[in-house]
């Protein structure tokens, strides 16, 4: 400590870290950590809040939906399509050769129970909601959904078959609580 008023470097030795380097680096590191610690709460405040997260799963009663009918429920601010598929629709979905699909997935990978197809009703192209929920809607060439924005066709498993969309309609996380009640999210 006695020679702190002198040069940090001993005479004749001009390489290697000095006391001054150490002070600079520790100060800068301290400042950087402090800044990050200050910035993080602000960044995190823009993430979903606790009350938003608390509403992130919904329970749906499927019993009123007859075969061939579809309903749309809102989950995390998005439409979720639930279709009670007819045996014909299930067969069409299961018999589609997987190798001619753009986003290869078998029907079994996309459903828990074959008669219930549950997908997020947002076209994977640019986010429109495809038509096909109402009986009067066009359902596209493959009997599933048709997106009016840019003409994507989805089949009865919600898979992309024709048009610009790159992926199948997404399948949300869900579990069957019993035969007719499902929890999405």
């Amino acid at each position, binding site marked *: 400590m006695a020679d702190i008023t002198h040069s940090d470097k001993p005479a004749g030795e001009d390489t290697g870290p000095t006391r001054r380097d150490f002070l600079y680096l520790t100060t800068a590191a301290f400042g950087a950590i402090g800044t990050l610690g200050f910035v993080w709460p602000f960044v995190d405040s823009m993430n979903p*809040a606790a009350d938003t997260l608390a509403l992130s799963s919904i329970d749906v009663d499927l019993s009123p939906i007859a075969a061939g009918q579809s309903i749309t429920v809102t989950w995390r601010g998005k439409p979720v399509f639930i279709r009670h598929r007819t045996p014909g629709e299930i067969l069409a979905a299961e018999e589609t050769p997987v190798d001619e699909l753009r986003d290869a997935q078998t029907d079994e990978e996309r459903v828990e129970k074959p008669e219930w197809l549950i997908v997020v009703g947002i076209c994977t192209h640019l986010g429109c909601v495809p038509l096909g929920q109402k009986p009067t809607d066009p359902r596209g060439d493959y009997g599933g959904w048709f997106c009016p924005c840019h003409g994507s066709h989805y089949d009865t498993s919600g898979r992309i078959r024709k048009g610009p969309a790159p992926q199948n309609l997404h399948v949300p996380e869900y579990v069957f609580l019993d035969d007719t009640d499902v929890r999405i999210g």
Partner: protein
Amino acid sequence: MAHGLANSSMKNPVLRWVDERLPVLTLLHKEYAAYPTPRNFNYFWNFGALAMVMLMVMIVTGIFLSMQYTAHVDHAFDSVERIMRDVNYGWLIRYIHMNGASFFFIAVFVHIFRGLYYGSYKKPRELLWILGVVILLLMMATAFMGYVLPWGQMSFWGATVITNLFSAIPAFGDQIVMWLWGGFSVDNPTLNRFFSLHYLLPFVIVGVVFLHVAALHITGSNNPLGIEPKGPQDTLPFHPYYTIKDTFGLGVFLIFYALFVFFAPNYLGHPDNYIPANPLVTPAHIVPEWYFLPFYAILRAVPDKLLGVILMFGSIAVLFILPWLDTSKVRSARFRPIYKWFFWVLVIDCFVLGWCGANPPEGIFVVLARLGTLYYFFHFLILLPILGKLERPLPLPKSISEPVLSPSPGGGRVASGATAKPMDKA
């Protein structure tokens, strides 16, 4: 040099390219690095920079709070509670903002009293001072409207009382108050316009602060001796000398600020503001935030409605003409043996007024508030003009560096060879 590229001292070719076309870096260097600053600042000169930091903190936290806030009478209170309970770190951001208002005022009040003590408002810095008073007024308006936003009982009744001040205006009072409210009472239109203005005014403050700093850099800073620097031996470059001094002061200031934010976040607030606004019931004891208490005391000291309002606004207005009220040529109170004492009387007076403002207007507090109000105006309007003529100031040093660099008669201590050679041109 009418046309062409600006001269730049930048070494980095990219920075140089920019700087030659838009010399912001040269400007920054000139105003914040090389800027010659009197070498004898004490820590009271930190508070301008501290106020600037607080303004930035308030703007940043305010922007993030406004992302979660709902300006509607039915949702405002709940949206603030949601910030406190559900939004990630919402409690922290709100407490920083809430207490930030108090610490902004602490910084600004110290800054103002420093100016009063060292005569920073005197020629040639009159306009600099006036811009500062404008900033104070804008801050008061912004703080008041911000306090209304949580829509608690104090928000609502504070808004009602302050807007009703304008009903004292003769003839047009009631129309003006209805115009302020956008209705027949403080209600949703009032809340919406207060939110809009509370977001706008801080940026107006930034603009006036820019002018304040620009004016400062024309005249140069005052200093504890109140005499102008006579040459380079009296000044230091702003960086690193005062950037470091300001940073150190900021560290100390932030410790106290953090103590309130983390350990006593509601100490400076009122519990009544956690009760949702109720237009049918006024809280039993209604007081403004602490930084308004002295002004509130002046308002209540006068038994006449219009006169009370006039005196309250007059207590700020008098600051605008202060540079011409103080007739003394000597700036620093260090060399004004009588003014020095009256300065401290004024400080105590402001605390007494604040104390009166915090208490119900009855008994001793009415008397104290009246005496305090009387002294406040006596100090500025009568004492300062007269004192400048009567007082005999102490002899001023020849220059800022002289007392440091010259051999002092008492100790005979000579400045070491490391410091600059004295070159008094006085």
